[in-house]
């Protein structure tokens, strides 16, 4: 697949601030989204995902306009910082909901779940409950779900913020591997320079509500790093 994302003069204003996004990206890979706190990174993610509607402008994913489309209808998987799993459902069901929101799965889809769990290193975790898992394991389940959804885009909203150094590295590696396997475009909010240097292919920087930089990682390292 060749994922393509376009933000065409997308504007939104709230709490007295204005955000304007102009963006065109094409092709799979990991895109790090960085910038000072409150600059507008999460806002952009929420716009792409459909949690908020822009005041003006168009959002296109793979050439299709997203206006009027609910979050569930958009070709992406969103990974939150927390609460990626339903606490009252087991791991298997949690992933299954990523395939069919009504839990109507074909046998092939069901076996995919186990495969996905194995790929993220959680083989055999089907029946476990989220409380029994560590923070890192829960995020991996979220990734497993992303795998079975086969969407061209994945948005990571600081999913590793609460994890320690080593775990972050391991997660970062997992993201790289998943991207390699699926060819999707991963947009990842990150403040960690080392992490960006290690795994990102491209970097977007957002300042004061607009995109101030959009280029390769190496370019970012030399000019901004």
């Amino acid at each position: 697949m060749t994922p393509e994302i376009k933000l065409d003069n997308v504007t939104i204003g709230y709490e007295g601030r204005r955000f304007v996004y102009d963006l065109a990206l094409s092709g799979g890979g990991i895109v790090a989204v960085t910038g000072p706190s409150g600059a507008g990174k999460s806002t952009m993610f929420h716009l792409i995902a459909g949690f908020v509607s822009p005041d003006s402008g168009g959002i296109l994913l793979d050439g299709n306009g997203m206006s009027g489309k609910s979050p569930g209808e958009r070709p992406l998987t969103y990974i939150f910082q927390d609460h990626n799993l339903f606490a009252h459902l087991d791991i298997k069901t949690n992933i299954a909901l990523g395939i069919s929101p009504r839990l109507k799965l074909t046998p092939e889809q069901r076996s995919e779940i186990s495969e996905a769990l194995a790929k993220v290193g959680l083989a055999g975790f089907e029946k476990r409950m989220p409380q029994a898992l560590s923070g890192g394991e829960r995020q991996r389940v979220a990734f497993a779900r992303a795998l079975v959804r086969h969407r061209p885009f994945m948005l990571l909203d600081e999913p590793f913020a609460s994890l320690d150094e080593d775990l972050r590295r391991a997660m970062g590696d997992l993201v790289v591997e998943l991207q390699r396997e699926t060819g999707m475009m991963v947009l990842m909010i990150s403040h960690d320079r080392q992490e960006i240097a290690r795994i990102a292919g491209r970097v977007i920087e957002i300042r004061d509500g607009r995109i101030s930089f959009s280029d390769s990682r190496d370019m970012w390292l030399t000019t901004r790093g």
Partner: protein
Amino acid sequence: MIEAIGERRFWVGAGGVGLTLLAGFCLAAFAMLLASAAASSWPPFAYLMRIFVFTIEQAVLSTLLSLLFALPLALAIARRPDFPGRRFVLVLMILPLGLPVLPAVFGLLEIWGRTGLVNDIGAGLGSTSRLSIYGLSGILLAHVFFNLPLAARLMLKALERVPSDEWRLAASLGFPRFSLFRFVEWPALIRVLPGIAGLIFMLCVTSFTIILTLGGGPQNSTLEVAIYQALKFEFDPARAMILSLAQLALTAVIFWLLRLFPDPEEDRRGASGRPFRPDARPVRALLLDGLTLGVFLIFVGAPVLAIVIAGLGSNLEGLAADPKFWQALRTSLTIALSAGLLATVLTYAMVRAEASLPARSAPIRLLFRFPEFMLLIPPLALGSGWFLVLLRFGMADGAGPILVVLINMGMALPFAARIIAPELATHLKRTARLSASLGISGFARFRIVDWPVMRAPLLTAFSFAAALSFGDLGAVALFGSDNFITLPSLLYASLGSYRSMDAAGLSLITGVICFLLTLPSVRLESARLGEDA
């Protein structure tokens, strides 16, 4: 909150229907009351003033006494995070929540009444005067019985939210007992005291059964009882209306004042861990706390024990053989379960609808919080209005029970909302975005995501509403008849006559059933209380 358009429309629609029906029910009652302002007279002004003043007077005194006696209890328990029997004390603090009023009054009479335990002991010790439970003293006693544990619970929660570092700091600075109170405990309490006082005040102003049974005449009548008497005794709709409006005005003012203060129950998931309380160790402290706890245990435990002992010693077989008992039981259960179900469904619809509305439409959102506002609508006023409606349009035989169900439902709404709303808010906060991002919506969402989590609070709300209805006397006092009897109305009748054996058995049975119904709420409350214990 983020959700699919269809889903939003459904819930707002459902909530809207519920709201319309509920508001219509209330407005019809008041319209009827206003329309009935015929030629009849105003109550004599002195009487109206007396009632108004007494309503406030007994509520103020009840509130002050409850707070005053709850304070030492809360302080004692707070500084001992574990001692043998702490759980039991906490349960006893929650127990009056699940006790229906009439059986409790019976228990109180057994202990404090003229021929009760205390007077018998007094006579045995040679005392000549007997204390009388009728009138203001009885009302205060009963109100304190119910509200002291409530006040103590809420104060305890506030004290347990004090960060453990503060205790350590105080200890390292060598604070004596009074400074501990002045600088650590009191600041924590003062934040919640107005809210607690307001809540208890509101409960006492709208109290009906206690005033009816222990009041003892027009000089000890409150507005609720006066409304009932204006209708049932004098058959004077205009008088009932004037009294209802007076009551409504009073509760509206209190309600508005209440909202100015922080809710004593919010932020239950407060800090904590065990406080470092070296002041709890000295023998004097042990004795003092032990005494406080002992007095509390006896004060709350004795009437409860009296109900059990008197009940078991009464003629239970005779009761079981009486067809009236079974009729009353069947009626009570049917009404309670219906009222509980309606209250739960209605509350959920409206709470859920409010969550679906965008944050900007604050006035409309406020409308959907109607269940909380039911606290300010006097049940007797509601009943009076509908009583007159029935009279005007023909008193169909089945109408009485239906109205009791609806009025009980109305009474239960604020409590159901208190149980459901916070749980739903937390649940939606956790799962709304995730559900939206995965495209889970509609009935599938309710089935897979919402119901499994909300099932427990909904059941708790249901059973609490059912218990409230089961033990209620107010509505059935208006609509009851020879054919339409409930356990409380039967109990009230037997309390009145000299057949107190029946009263004992009925009290026990009513009390047990109510308590079983409130068990889920008791557990919930206990969990919220004992989170750190």
